[in-house]
């Protein structure tokens, strides 16, 4: 059990100008389940591999349990790595695959057997110990990979998109199992994924990355409710947050590329009082209420698209050339082309500076 510290970590690939990982500072607590989340190519896997020692560190330091590990071989860092494709040795049985790390270090036979029994029981794979991994379904292969990682009792678990190759229902099951497992073992876990559902449901904290830069590190709900950058706001949340670029004038927002217009109230006016530049206005679908009577809305719009999801309906509404999404219960049924009104929850609007893409705080 140990904490993991990343201090100003960089990664440069020769011949490539942009940094793959750019000045990442991350402090992972002992026993924490931290998810590195981001789209492909954002640098999350590279960061994970640097922690593991599978990639060299171009700049900065990585400390595990207070120990600087930059120059240590992967095998000396007391970590375990679960690969996206499981990396199980095809010619060894499940039993031999799991005990491989211990046998490679000449651990005593009795100890090996005991740990194997523990792990097999915990992961419910006792019945497949003598089979070859090639013939197993992916769910079981994944458990074998987990077993191999767990048997060493490392200080840190590192996982690279382990659930990506499973089908949807299995993935849902495994999410719960992994979270429970981490809770039981109490081991620090660093988990890479591009799937926000995994990130939101399993982690203590999420570290969102984009293009090598760490965007925000916070608990899931905070990431959801108070995204610090435009990227985080647009990446997290289904359906995506509605974003409209605007300029500020006379206590109103005017769409930059459209006829969108919103009058501001209360604290928002103060927040934007001194604001000189353009902003980007964002609101989540659940914070927008649809009113069939256009006059009763803060803004008016025309329904463009309707998505019937069964337990709710999502409407895409044209507001003067820009679009806003709103969620309603199935009972509110409005036709495409109809003019309706939208009421916004002013407590839950998000404003971002257009140039820096950083969040603008509003008081209240």
């Amino acid at each position, binding site marked *: 059990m140990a904490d993991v510290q990343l201090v100003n970590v960089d990664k440069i690939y020769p011949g490539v100008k942009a940094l793959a990982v750019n000045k990442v500072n991350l402090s992972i607590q002992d026993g924490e389940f931290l998810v590195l989340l981001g789209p492909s190519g954002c640098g999350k896997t590279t960061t994970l591999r640097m922690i593991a020692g599978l990639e060299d560190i171009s700049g900065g330091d990585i400390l595990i349990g207070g120990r600087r590990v930059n120059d240590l071989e992967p*095998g000396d860092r007391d970590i375990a790595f679960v690969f996206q494709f499981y990396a199980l040795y095809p010619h060894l049985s499940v039993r031999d695959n799991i005990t491989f790390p211990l046998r490679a270090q000449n651990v005593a036979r009795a100890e090996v057997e005991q740990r194997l029994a523990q792990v097999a029981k915990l992961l419910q794979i006792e019945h497949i110990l003598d089979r*070859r991994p090639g013939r197993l379904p*992916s769910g079981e292969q994944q458990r074998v990979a987990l077993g191999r990682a767990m048997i060493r009792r490392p200080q840190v678990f590192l996982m690279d998109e382990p659930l990506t190759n499973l089908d949807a229902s299995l993935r849902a099951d495994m999410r719960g199992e992994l979270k429970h497992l981490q809770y039981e073992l109490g081991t620090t876990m660093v988990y890479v994924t591009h799937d926000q559902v995994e990130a939101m449901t399993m982690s203590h904290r999420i570290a969102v990355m984009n293009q090598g830069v760490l965007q925000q590190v916070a608990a899931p709900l905070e990431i959801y409710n108070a995204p610090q950058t435009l990227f985080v706001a647009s990446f997290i949340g289904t359906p995506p947050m509605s974003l409209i670029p605007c300029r500020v004038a006379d206590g109103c927002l005017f769409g930059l590329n459209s006829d969108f217009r919103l009058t501001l109230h209360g604290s928002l006016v103060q927040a934007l009082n001194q604001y000189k530049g353009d902003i980007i206005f964002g609101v989540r679908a659940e914070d927008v209420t649809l009113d069939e009577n256009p006059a009763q809305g803060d803004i008016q719009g025309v329904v463009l698209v309707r998505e019937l999801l069964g337990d709710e309906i999502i409407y895409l509404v044209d507001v003067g050339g820009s679009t806003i999404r709103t969620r309603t219960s199935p009972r509110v049924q409005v036709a495409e082309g109809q003019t309706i009104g939208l009421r916004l929850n002013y407590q839950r609007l998000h404003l971002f500076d257009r140039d820096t893409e950083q969040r603008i705080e509003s008081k209240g």
Partner: protein
Amino acid sequence: MATTLERQLPIGQTAKPRFSRLSDRWLAGLFLTPTMLLLLFITIFPLIWSLFLSFNEWSVTRNALNAPIWIGTQNYAELLSDTRIGERTWERFIVTGQFVVPAVTIELLLGFGVAVLLNRKFRGRAIFMTVLLIPMMLSPVVVALFWRFMMQGEGILNYMATNWLNIGSIGWLTDRNTVIISLIIVDVWMWTPFMMLISLAGLSAVPKYLYEAAAVDRASGWFRFRHITLPMITPLLLIAIIFRTIDAYKLFDLAFVLLGSQGGPGRAGQTAALWVYEVAFSNFDTGMGSALGYIMLIVIIALANVFIRVLNAFKGEGAAA
């Protein structure tokens, strides 16, 4: 152990039934027919003809116009018996073994070793690889000629041996004891690239993440080799060994040009293939030459059979549940 070749599936796939849609079956025939026709035509006919000849006394070179004289299994009897010819036949097979086994073994070890060296990225790797492939692209006749040139009593090899290494002249092709070694050297020179290419391909196909997993597990180099590399490339190497062994076994042009049809002094280097040539052409006994050729064929078929079973056993082991 099944003797059928096991189907290899990517991890995660379950076995699916093959296509047997009636409308498609004619395609199988269409695809197979040209190949089978060629193979049958070109090989079956000579096989049968040779078989016929082997039961006859005839000479295509001396008196082809005379009809072959049926002598039954006399050719075979002579070749396999205690007579001078029979003994000589037996010796030829021993010489063949003395050539094929070391040659293929060295080619395997050396080729694999070089492949391991070339498997990491380093500057100029492509050049090394390309240059190392050239020996097998040259005509065997030329290779043999030039090595013969270099191995002459006053050739460059002996020049280096006496003047640079101080070990005196070696009778590469003239000393009974070194003739086979010389043949091995030339064959190794020519065919190691083949083994190297196949080994390299096999090595580069092992997924990198297996090695990474082993690194995380602190496996030693030897452990990695034995449990990851070796199991993954063995099937490939076995097939390469089968083909190379078959080719070395029936090697003719290289040995002929290097040693002559009698295989050098005292027939020290006369492999079975050379002996067949001598019998059939120098001795003008086509019938016996054919019989001898048949014996060679039977031996190699038996050997190859064993090889294939080993190969299947290995593959079957890998797929066992």
